[in-house]
């Protein structure tokens, strides 16, 4: 059993892109601002003409929690799992879960990148995993053992 997003006309493009392995955010065709989650109109210039813009999939951990006690039967076998808010390089944040990292090695500010996993037939979700290359560059820029790239 999986917990899958219901889709509406407003939100379906986000999930359809995820199924195709792409991360997108809504973008105003007039003023080119972007945001997430999707809205009926541009909140900046109020234009109704909106599109979807691919983003790099690069982001950083804004905050996270390691869930050790499941509150829903669908996640009973998943604990411990790491829920995070990830700030995309392009600005908007999204809720996701982190893969490929031990719970005690997650840090706020950690560079991560999007990966996509099928959770049900025809449904893929955007998760994030540590971005080793950018992490090394970040350590270098902070005066660590590795030179900045």
């Amino acid at each position: 059993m999986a917990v899958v997003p219901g889709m509406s006309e407003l939100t379906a493009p986000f999930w359809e892109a995820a199924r195709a392995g792409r991360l997108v955010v809504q973008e105003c065709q007039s003023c080119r601002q972007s945001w997430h989650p999707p809205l009926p109109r541009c909140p900046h210039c109020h234009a109704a003409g909106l599109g979807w813009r691919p983003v790099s999939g690069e982001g950083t951990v804004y905050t996270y929690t390691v869930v050790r006690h499941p509150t829903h039967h669908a996640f009973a076998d998943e604990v411990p799992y790491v829920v995070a808010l990830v700030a995309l390089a392009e600005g908007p944040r999204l809720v996701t879960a982190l893969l490929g990292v031990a719970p005690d090695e997650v840090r706020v500010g950690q560079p991560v990148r999007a990966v996509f996993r099928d959770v049900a037939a025809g449904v893929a979700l955007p998760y994030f995993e540590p971005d080793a290359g950018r992490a090394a560059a970040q350590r270098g820029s902070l005066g660590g053992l590795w030179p900045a790239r």
Partner: protein
Amino acid sequence: MIRRAAAIVGIGQTAYGKALPSSAWELALEAVLAACADAGVDVAEVDGMCRFTAPFETVTEAQLVRGLGIRELSWFTQAAHGGEALGAVVLHAAAAVSAGLASTVVVYRALSQSRGGRFGRADGRGPGGGGPDGGQPEGGQPEGDIVVPEQDNLSFAWPFGLMSPGQLFALWARRYAAVHGLSDEDLTVALGTIAVTQRRYANGNPDAMMRSRTMSLDDYRAARVISEPLRLFDLCLENDGACAFVVTTADRARALRPDPVYVLSATQTISPYREPMGIYAGGELLELFPPAAADRLFAQAGVGRADIDVAEFYDATSYMPLRSLESYGFVPDGRAWRYVTEQGTGPGSPLPVNTHGGHLSEAYLHGMNGILEAVRQLRGTAANQVPDAEVALVGAPAGSATILAR
């Protein structure tokens, strides 16, 4: 301006406990009758009601009017956003009596988590379950995938396992620790000190569910982790119970009793990405109650921070009173974690906080029991009385707050 135009003249509550024999409707009736008796008003004369809070409150105004033989309500409303409405309900009631829309307003909250579903369980509520208080799904758990409707952005959170308030508030606490450079131990000591302090208050409060269960910092540390960095005792109780209070005009209040508790101010706040229980896709997560809203609350009350004698902060988790000390301007940003261990919030501290034990150790009533405690403090009848308390603040970590005075 509502300053001193309205007053709370009656408070009522039921027993608080796990699996009480009464339904939410029965609990609501008991609390409303107690509040009216305390106010010295005939319940049949109640002409206004504020239901606390959509969509969680399952008992309707119609059930109370019918169940209590109230002749007619000329005004009724409900406040949104769960516990973040605890100042909003005071604001709505005070505004209604000040505008002459009603003369005797009852605010109520009745909760039966034993029958209606626990807030700490996501699978009795929302998608795949009942309503917010809707109980377990009939016929057991559903087969197949659970499709999360696009409602309040749940469809962008639930599929990743972000499903319960405690998980969400853990994200807040982790952000606080990271921004202000706290180690895990620093955060543990700060949150644990709040939990232990509130437990001590509860030990002195005969109405508290945790009245006879003491807790040390070692006990706190030993409890299991629920959603890091939050442990079991960082999270509020789950229980049944009900609270109600009566608001009327200041003139009528003085005729009813010698010790009305006046509303000095109350304010609401909502702005983009500060939606209660949102997914926080923008803005700074630490500024859910904006500084401008706190300044407005104090300016409208005509008092300063130093005038507040006691604070009752909404505490679904121990992080909330910690951050509220900062967001309401009592302690500079990033300093409350040291403040709570150095100055503390217990008896004799500069600002006693959650003197009834709070949601962590008295009971969980969505903020309403904090309002009732503030009234008792200002009447001078609290179990853990702050000497000569004259002004109290009741505030949520986002959404709304009120300042009350005798």
